[in-house]
């Protein structure tokens, strides 16, 4: 594990606007630094965005994360509501489907996160920029570099989990992005 910058996610701001701008800015700087081809000093390890939801430590490749935002306006979608699709989230002038990971990947629905600082993780894969998706999660830790050689195969087969990654906060499940995007979109209809 090669920590670059870690945001403990607890620096929530009382003002939604200020919090959003500040947090988004930090994540944008991380992503820029790590994704920039000029960042030759950085080791060639993939960067992951670590977060916690429903008591489970999770991670996503930073390359598919467009932004991390404070939860702003949301709107339910008539005829499409369900435990997975929670509605549409307003993000940077767009309305993006809002997915709750709890039901989507089978996490503990009864977990009550004490340190909850809810954030939207907006997924924006480079290959399919129109396939944006927002995940509402309990807490975002930040972006860190991670050596794939240290990743472990999950003991229990799961469609959504690609690997297990050790972190100072415990074991995190690295989500399989393609499956996440495809499977979630399938339930929108």
């Amino acid at each position: 594990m090669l920590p670059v910058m870690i945001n403990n996610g607890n620096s929530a701001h009382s003002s939604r606007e200020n919090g959003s701008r500040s947090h988004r800015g930090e994540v944008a700087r991380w992503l820029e630094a790590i994704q920039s081809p000029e960042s030759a000093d950085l080791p060639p390890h993939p960067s992951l965005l670590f977060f916690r939801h429903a008591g489970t430590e999770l991670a996503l490749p930073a390359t598919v994360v467009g932004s991390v935002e404070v939860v702003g306006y949301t709107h339910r979608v008539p005829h499409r509501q369900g435990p997975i699709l929670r509605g549409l989230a307003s993000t940077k002038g767009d309305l993006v489907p809002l997915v709750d990971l709890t039901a989507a990947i089978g996490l503990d629905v009864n977990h009550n996160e004490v340190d909850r600082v809810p954030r939207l993780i907006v997924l924006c894969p480079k290959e399919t920029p129109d396939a944006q998706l927002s995940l509402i999660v309990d807490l975002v830790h930040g972006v860190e570099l991670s050596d794939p050689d240290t990743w472990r195969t999950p003991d229990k087969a799961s469609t959504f989990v690609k690997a297990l990654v050790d972190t100072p906060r415990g074991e995190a499940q690295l989500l399989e992005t393609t499956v996440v995007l495809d499977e979630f979109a399938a339930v929108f209809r």
Partner: protein
Amino acid sequence: MSGDLSGFSMFDLFREEARTHGEVISRGLVDLETDPANTDLIAALMRAAHSLKGAARIVGLDLAVGVAHAMEDAMVAVQNGEALITPNRIDQLLAAADLLAQLTELEESGIDDWTMSNVAKADALSTDLRTPVTDAASEAAPAQHTGSQDAVESTPAPASVDDGAVRVTSRRLDQIMRLAGESLVASRRFQTVRDHLLQLRRRHGRFQARLREARLKDVEASTETLDQALREGSRSELELAEHQDQLDVFLGRLEELADALYNEVLGSRMRPFDEGVTMFPRMVRDLSRDLGKKATLTIEGGQVAVDRDVLRELEAPLTHMLRNCVDHGVETVEDRVAIGKSDSATITLSAHHQGGRLHVMVKDDGRGIDPEGIRSKVIERGLVDEDVASALTNRELYEFLFLPGFSTAKAVTDVSGRGVGLDVVQTMVQAMSGGVRIDSDPGQGTSFQLTLPLTRSVVRALIADLGGESYAFPLTHIDRIEKTDATSVTTEDARTKLQVDEDSIDLLDSGTLMELDPVRTRQDVHAIIVGGEDDRVALQVDGFLGEEDLLVRPLDPRLGRIPHLSASAFRESGEPVLIVDVEDVLRTARRAVTEGAFAIDTEPSLPVAQGPRVLVVDDSITVREAQRGILTRHGYNVDVAADGAEGWERLQRGDYDLLITDVDMPGMNGIEFVRTLRSQERFKNLPVAMVSYKDEESQRQEGLDAGATVYLSKHVINDDQFIDTVRTLLES
């Protein structure tokens, strides 16, 4: 195209020029046929052919140079009085123009192939065009030209008018539109800042009042301090007032700018109606000539501004209607003369704005539609019984013409007469949030009247609260709004009614309609009255939030077609709002009425039927209702859904014995729908009939591969084959 052209190749520039000249030639030739002595027109055509020749030469298109040269020579011969303009000569010139128009769609890499495959055709056309026509009487029959069907299909897309406009890609234009809309919304957020300043000023006033009070109570100890505080307070108040004034000025200016920018961009989306219909005079001319008839198309309201999206989407339904007019509406020359009409029919295509809507009419002075013929056909096909049929008004009878497969034509032709077309017209117009109506005066003519939104980019809407969220109802669809109390609500025959003046209108709970929580407010009734004279419906909401201009954004396509919703938008406050598809709501309401149960999907699951239950899924209401009528008459319990997504939802909640589904549907199409249901163990053995106009073998195979049990052509819906297939599937 203007300004910096460095990004364009020579061939790009040629294409652009060829498109402009081709448009002039095509339109001019049709006009010339009816006015062959118009020397100005002949000169304009000659110039266009000449310019085209020069442009083709620059890019080395020798074949095109030859054809354009022959066209120019032909026009020169006419100009010099050495040749006549006859219908055959017009055919030849149009065929030449069509050939050159192909270049406007060609990639530069395809020039050699195009040249190789068109050498013979170009030579033949050049030879024909250089053979002078000196005897008009020798032309007894239409020439065997390249065929009007081809001509109609290959008529180049309308070129932008030469008004000095910069060509902007639609993608970029959409982006500018979005930014303009956002700036408008952003500017209005300053309202909040101004309101805050006002609050602060009031608070400050109270602070000063308290100081004055304190001064009165403790004069000796703090007079000087309090005086200072008062002076400071007064200064602060003055500063605040100044800032507020400045902010007011700034706000006003910003709103003006944003409005101007928004209107400017919106205006750039609007194109003259004329621009989208340039190909139709030629189409009517070719088609009537092929059918041995005479007809001319007159365009009225050519300068009426129409949103470019609406204009583009109008092309297909107008094509259907005009072809229908020429084929069915217009009589032969002999028949017209025999009844005292002029030998040439007039078809009028007109456009005008009224009531915030675009009205388009296609009208002919042909034979009209015999309502009794439709009445007989309706009875003969068993669509309604004789008693009901005899009570139908002419307008109601004309509605049957929108049923798929319904035609009163005595003969099927290549042009029309199979009953395919008008249902497609209705479906397309409804998809544009519009409507279509037929009126006819037997012996005098028929008119098709389309009512459409002026633009699909911006909509003024009433914002209503539903379950704490905002929903927008376009004002053009609202008859009125009512805020009343619960005493105005009654129950009649298990239907909830709202008393509005002298009328008792069905009241629908919008929350239930949207499958959300029922409307919360039961004492104060907030109702939005929508629909026409005969089918008004009151939609109950939790409250009214005001009127706003909304920049329409499409919903995420991954959500499929969502019942009763058309789009999304952001409110001035930045809050998202979903725009209600009122036409779809009305369709659901009408369906609920015909089903005899006005409460819309209020039960958590559909009732289990006693007999075979059939689910019909089709986005065309006419097809759905036709199938429902036939199946119901044969004793089946039928439910319907408007698309794959709604069908999938109903299928999971109901207990069906057979599914009949269309293929082409918005959102989840039939192929996806059947694949989805076959992936579920529960539906592995459900008989599925896929019904479509697409009846080629490859399309049939795709349906069967997806999991359909049988694949039927929609043409058989009114035949015994349809009901026989249903019986077979259910027995199996």
